[in-house]
């Protein structure tokens, strides 16, 4: 079992006091805190081998290049990719998904094709496909939820038809926490239509549980560094090598070329043809350090800790009067995220009063407005948990919510 209190010592921000009081950070679904190891690794690039990568014929450039590619290898191992080249560095999950839309989507989708998303998608896996559908005249279909907040797999055959070219699906909902059975879904999709690709938004999965892209059988996977203890500005697109090879480049410019002549350009190979321009080198090595940190903790233990904390939070919050928890209460199939409302009190007011005791939660639609409209609910409060979340943090949240109720009673 993980000791979250000991882990807290690795996170300098948790030593910070605001208004004389410590921080109770319950917004890791938006972005995670960073351990010293990650911060030091970023710093190391700027203090030891700050040089551009690939073309330098001098020691520190070679060092920087090795560090950059080493991070790619670590990320590949972390998600069980079959080779490092399948890992493409992007800015974040949104950019990774847009990369697929702009390259694979533009060259493979045509009028009359269908793309399917689920109603629980984050805007980053919803808007690119909605817009691509408008541009290309595609059928844009949305897979809804059952009452318990899960997808009904029996309905899949109505969505995956001969015309369906893509299912874009999140592994874990960033609002209600539902963990989707990705492996089973991919298996069913491939049986219904072997030509339908599956893109998995794993922004809330890779940081929190073991992920094995080969076991899942997916075609694309997207996630962000900053939600998994890494820096902002670095994300990952994983794709099956054969698919990446066939796809046209994303952005044009430096690094993504092999030869440039006045009349034509020969593009670089995978993954470099998708990484135009000088990349976020420090961010990439920082992500590598985050992967090391999580690997040392063990992803099974990370998941077990979050499940225990979520269960504790679920129990304590559902005991409170006037609190409505959105979605499933089944923590075995739920990530470390919990959305709720308080009767008669607007989420912004809840968050504002909690902030007075440095309790950081998120309120609003959490970049999933279609889900809120589908559930016919207004904005919600969301508390989310990670490796450094303790039961004391949950106790502080409960105490804070009692204070909110008192002020508004």
């Amino acid at each position, binding site marked *: 079992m993980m000791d979250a209190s000991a882990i807290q010592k690795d996170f300098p921000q948790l030593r910070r006091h605001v208004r004389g009081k410590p921080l109770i950070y319950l917004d890791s679904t938006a972005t995670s805190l960073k351990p010293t190891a990650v911060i030091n690794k970023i710093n190391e690039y700027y203090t030891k081998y700050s040089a551009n990568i690939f073309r330098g014929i001098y020691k520190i450039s070679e060092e920087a290049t090795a560090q950059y590619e080493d991070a790619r290898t670590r990320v590949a191992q972390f998600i069980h990719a079959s080779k490092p080249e399948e890992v493409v560095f992007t800015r974040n999950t949104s950019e990774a998904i847009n990369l697929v839309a702009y390259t694979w989507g533009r060259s493979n989708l045509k009028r009359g094709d269908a793309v399917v998303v689920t109603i629980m998608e984050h805007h980053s896996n919803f808007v690119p496909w909605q817009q691509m559908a408008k541009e290309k005249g595609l059928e844009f279909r949305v897979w809804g939820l059952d009452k318990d907040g899960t997808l009904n797999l029996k309905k899949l055959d109505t969505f995956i038809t001969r015309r369906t070219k893509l299912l874009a699906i999140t592994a874990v909902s960033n609002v209600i926490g539902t963990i989707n059975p990705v492996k089973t879904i991919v298996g069913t999709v491939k049986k219904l239509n072997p030509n339908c690709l599956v893109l998995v938004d794993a922004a809330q999965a890779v940081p929190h549980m073991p992920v094995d892209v080969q076991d899942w059988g997916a075609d694309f996977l997207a996630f962000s560094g900053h939600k998994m203890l890494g820096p902002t500005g670095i994300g990952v697109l994983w794709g099956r090598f054969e698919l990446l090879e066939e796809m046209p480049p994303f952005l044009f410019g430096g690094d993504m070329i092999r030869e440039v002549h006045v009349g034509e350009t020969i593009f670089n190979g995978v993954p470099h043809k998708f990484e135009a321009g000088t990349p976020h080198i420090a961010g990439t090595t920082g992500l590598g350090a985050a992967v090391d940190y999580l690997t040392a903790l063990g992803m099974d233990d990370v998941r077990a800790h979050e499940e225990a904390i979520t269960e504790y939070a679920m129990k304590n919050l559902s005991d409170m009067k006037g609190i409505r928890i959105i979605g499933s209460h089944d923590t075995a199939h739920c990530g470390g995220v919990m959305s709720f409302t308080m009767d008669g009190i*607007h989420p912004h*007011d809840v968050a504002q009063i909690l902030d007075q005791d440095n309790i950081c939660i998120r309120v*609003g639609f959490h970049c999933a407005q279609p889900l809120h409209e589908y559930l016919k609910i207004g904005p919600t409060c969301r508390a989310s948990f990670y490796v450094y979340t303790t039961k004391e943090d949950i106790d502080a949240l409960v105490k804070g919510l009692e204070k909110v109720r008192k002020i508004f009673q």
Partner: protein
Amino acid sequence: MDMYREQILDHYKHPRNFGTLKKSDAKASAYNATCGDKITIEIQCQMMNAKCQIKDIRFNGEGCAISMASASMLSEKVKEMTLDGIMKLNTENILEMLNTTLTPSRIKCATLPLEVLQKAVVSLNP
């Protein structure tokens, strides 16, 4: 605990001029997609000393305590105010009216009702 002082909570729990007008001269709405606040304001005008002023006003919608209290207090403040006077109101006036300290992310909540009211006034003079 300044932001949720008694008067603001009172206006939130018992909003003044909440509802709709049987007959209105102008109506405007706004929706803040980041927090889900919705507000509609209706106004009825009259001429007084050759100037057009607010005779009656109603608002409805849903939102946080700050936006709802701001709408309620504003509805009391602008009765019999001239339309020119309303157009001169700004963020500072609203903060003075609320008499509380707002964090940067909440100023938008406080000023949403004024924006809607001014939109209604503008619609009278196309």
